[in-house]
């Protein structure tokens, strides 16, 4: 029945993006625009003793300088993930309310001037004298004061997960693997730096924001400023990548609004690349330890997964690392724990594959070690242990892991692999292959999602939901969903998003976007279709008069009897006869309850072939294969792209990406794209992606489980396992820098 859904159609926003016509936040033109620049703290802890703005105020074009001395007092921010649908500040601390400095990069002043260059220059003239206090910015510095967290993610998740008797089972295990891993911090580095343009009009605020959730920006700014939601409107048409950095609402958004109110003109605040390292969260420095106990024939009997990471002074934030290790494999005795060190960084945040990009690396590296130890094929070890139910004994809403593993193995040519490390060479390069299972939780803690569909009497339709396009292809996929729901050709449907005045949906985070938005759009579109079908069967002048609506379908804008396609009429004919210039229907979707009796994971399988130069220590990925079971795929073309991107994020995570604090200064070592290395074109091998199609009737009406994170999960493990296969060397630190890999 579906014709548009599942088709690999080109992106509807393609022409705008390839011609430069697509406008991103910093490109909005408003009359009398002004430009803001942030002055960021250079110390990691202490207070602002003196802030001398004299020289800056004297610089040409300066309109205002705001510091903690004159910034209005705001409501207290309380961190909550934006998917939850409430105010979602990225941290429970707003800068410039007092003289305190909690982390380097914290805003201490905001300069507004009449040009970008003048604002930046004046910001450099603000002279800040700090009273510096001792700081902790690395795990090592705070290790002795580490504590066990009670809850994570703004209180949404427990920090401990336990079943059975781990200690006894571990002691009695026939085989044990017990390994520790270390991870440098990661930064999202979306190529569009965060930007906000704010303008006030008669007490009402409009914000153009580079965000993964316009609704979250609206809720957060309204809460901090104590304004009614109806007076805060957020608009976002195109966002230049998010990857989690724009999932929460960071202080610069509200600062832009305050500055605009202060100068009485629109204010554009664009953060610099350097500032992006300290302004929108990061994946925290962490250590993980995973002990596995198993029988000789490769059955898991005990697992103990611990994470230690560093958070901010004000939030118990850790990426939850055990959401997959606790349930992917059947294991009667399990304990997962999170310990934290309070440090002088901003609150870390969601970074692509939050939690599991790292947690599954640990799990799947340990599984590879176990397979090697037992002499069992790594793939077979996964299949043998894959759980039929989740940690609570609930069946999966849909599975597909084994199919992914088997299909991936076939595409990759896994069969017949010689498992002996260091058994293949190509000139200076050792060649190895590795694999990993992948899984990612399906979150369902969003509120009710809404959309609206409107059909005009000429047969064209506009379908709306307040989401935003940051590369996921949501505009395209929702056009497809709406077209199928209405029974219209794709070309007759326009999907509109990017404005909080539209029906609201939650932030597109945690791979939840496609599932929840499609649910609302589908509901609106089908409601409108049903409304018009009802009109037709009730209309004595309709050829469908008196028909049972259940026997009617709509295709290409024509309403017909399913069994008798010749009997029917178009939407246009029906509407014009009934004096309907247009027709409209809202649609909404409320997710299943949090205690829905189903295991909720998206599954996949990752395979990689690497070449390692063992003398120099360099690792190059030669090919990668990923097979995923993300439920229904709305658009295989854009979904494939997102999965390829995720897999290459995994490559970056494995081999290149890491940042470290200089504990003496409490500042990041890397603050540019020249220092923080993300993959370039030459690092990216050809990547094969395929799908295992399955039906999921639990997660949402269309059975969409999402593709945003699962592509990345497991890749680093597959690469690390391939490095082991190539060299015999097990690297237990990411990124796998040359000095760790070289013989």
């Amino acid at each position, binding site marked *: 029945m579906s014709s548009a859904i599942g088709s690999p159609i080109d992106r509807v926003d393609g022409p705008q993006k390839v011609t430069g016509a697509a406008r991103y936040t910093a490109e909005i033109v408003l009359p009398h625009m002004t430009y803001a620049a942030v002055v960021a703290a250079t110390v990691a802890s202490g207070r602002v003793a003196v802030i001398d703005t004299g020289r800056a105020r004297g610089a040409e074009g300066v309109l205002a300088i705001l510091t903690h001395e004159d910034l209005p007092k705001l409501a207290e921010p309380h961190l909550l993930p934006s998917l939850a649908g409430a105010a979602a500040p990225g941290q429970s601390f707003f800068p410039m309310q007092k003289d305190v400095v909690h982390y380097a990069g914290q805003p201490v002043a905001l300069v507004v001037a009449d040009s970008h*260059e003048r604002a930046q220059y004046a910001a450099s003239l603000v002279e800040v004298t700090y009273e510096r206090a001792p700081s902790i910015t690395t795990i090592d510095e705070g290790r002795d004061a580490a504590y066990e967290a009670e809850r994570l993610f703004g209180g949404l998740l427990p920090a401990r997960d336990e079943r059975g008797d781990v200690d006894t089972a571990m002691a009695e295990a026939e085989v044990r693997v017990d390994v520790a891993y270390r991870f440098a911090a990661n930064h999202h580095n979306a*190529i569009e730096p965060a930007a906000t343009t704010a303008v006030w009009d008669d007490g009402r605020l409009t914000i153009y924001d580079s965000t993964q959730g316009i609704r979250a920006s609206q809720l957060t700014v309204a809460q901090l400023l104590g304004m009614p939601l109806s007076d805060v409107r957020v608009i976002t048409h195109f966002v230049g990548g998010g990857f989690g950095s724009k999932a929460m609402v960071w202080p610069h958004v509200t600062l832009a609004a305050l500055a605009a109110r202060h100068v009485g003109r629109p204010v554009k605040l664009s953060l610099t690349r350097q500032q992006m390292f300290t302004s929108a969260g990061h994946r925290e420095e962490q250590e993980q330890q995973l002990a596995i106990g198993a029988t000789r024939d490769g059955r898991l009997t005990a697992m103990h997964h611990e994470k230690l990471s560093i958070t901010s002074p004000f939030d118990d934030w850790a990426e939850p690392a055990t959401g997959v290790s606790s349930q992917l494999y059947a294991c009667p005795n399990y304990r997962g724990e999170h310990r934290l060190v309070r440090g002088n960084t901003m609150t870390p945040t969601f970074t692509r594959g939050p939690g599991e990009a790292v947690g599954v690396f640990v799990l799947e590296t340990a599984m590879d070690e176990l397979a090697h130890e037992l002499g069992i094929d790594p793939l077979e070890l996964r299949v043998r242990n894959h759980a039929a139910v989740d940690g609570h004994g609930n069946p999966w809403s849909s599975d597909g892991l084994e199919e992914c593993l088997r299909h991936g193995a076939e595409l990759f040519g896994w069969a017949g692999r010689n498992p002996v490390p260091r058994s293949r060479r190509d000139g200076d390069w050792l060649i190895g292959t590795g694999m990993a299972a992948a899984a990612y939780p399906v979150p369902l803690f969003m509120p009710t999602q809404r959309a609206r569909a409107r059909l005009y009497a000429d047969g064209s339709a506009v379908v709306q939901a307040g989401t935003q396009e940051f590369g996921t292809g949501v505009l395209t996929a929702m056009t497809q969903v709406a077209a199928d729901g209405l029974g219209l050709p794709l070309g007759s449907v326009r999907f509109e998003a990017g404005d909080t005045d539209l029906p609201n949906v939650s932030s597109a985070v945690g791979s939840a976007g496609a599932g929840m938005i499609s649910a609302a759009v589908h509901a609106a579109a089908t409601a409108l279709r049903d409304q018009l079908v009802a009109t037709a069967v009730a209309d004595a002048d309709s050829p469908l008069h008196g028909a049972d609506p259940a026997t009617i379908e709509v295709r290409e804008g024509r309403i017909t009897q399913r069994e008798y396609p010749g009997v029917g009429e178009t939407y246009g004919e029906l509407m014009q006869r009934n004096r309907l210039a247009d027709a409209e229907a809202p649609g909404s979707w409320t997710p299943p309850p949090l205690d829905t009796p189903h295991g909720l994971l998206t599954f996949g399988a990752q395979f990689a072939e690497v070449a390692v130069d063992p003398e120099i220590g360099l690792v190059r990925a030669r090919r990668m294969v990923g097979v995923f079971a993300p439920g229904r795929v709305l658009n295989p073309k854009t979904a494939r792209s997102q999965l390829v991107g995720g897999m290459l994020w995994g490559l970056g995570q494995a081999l290149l990406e890491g940042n470290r604090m200089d504990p003496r200064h409490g500042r990041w070592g890397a603050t540019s794209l020249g220092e923080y290395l993300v993959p*370039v074109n030459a690092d990216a091998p050809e990547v094969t992606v395929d799908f295992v199609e399955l039906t999921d009737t639990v997660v949402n009406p269309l059975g969409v489980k999402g593709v945003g994170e699962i592509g990345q999960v497991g890749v680093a493990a597959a690469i690390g396992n391939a490095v082991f296969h190539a060299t015999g060397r097990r690297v237990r630190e990411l990124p796998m820098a040359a000095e760790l890999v070289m013989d």
Partner: protein
Amino acid sequence: MPAWAVQLIAHHVRPKIMHNDQFVATAPPDRPPLTSGPSSLPVALTVNGSTHVVDLEPRVSLLDALREHLDLTGSKKGCDQGTCGACTVWVDGRRVLACLSLAVTCEGRSVTTIEGLAAGEELHPMQRAFIECDAFQCGYCTAGQIMSAVALLEEGNATTDAEIAESMSGNICRCAAYPNIRAAIREVRDAGEGGHRATA
């Protein structure tokens, strides 16, 4: 003839001159000797075949001149320090980084941006190939990628995938559409329609 082809010959024939988008009578000499600044001065920039006279401080980069003064926002600011390639434009037909170019140094030169690539409504073959191959996601690096890709075919160093990958490595795509970007370039190369002059 597309705008970029017009601009290739524009400064040889007496360009049309606009001052803040108004026509003015005469063209300035190509690159007059001058000392100026730090306050703003009129700078004549020939972009996509049209010459615009804009008041710019000497410190203003070509990228900011395009984005903030000429409202040509297709060229993107990703790092402002030469490490991402999102601002790639052509100056006198060669791909360069607009963020590390001062606008005033571009007087008398021909600047081509993504807005000048299509021939009216007709997309450049590389633009079409980027759509067909899904060679972008968020789209923020895309203008730079396409300006690099078209230049690459013109440079003639796109014989192998390895060459393409190396030559495109100055354009970071954080969505990591790299394999699809290579596919798009291959497609245009193999159709023999690449390069600056493809749609002329």
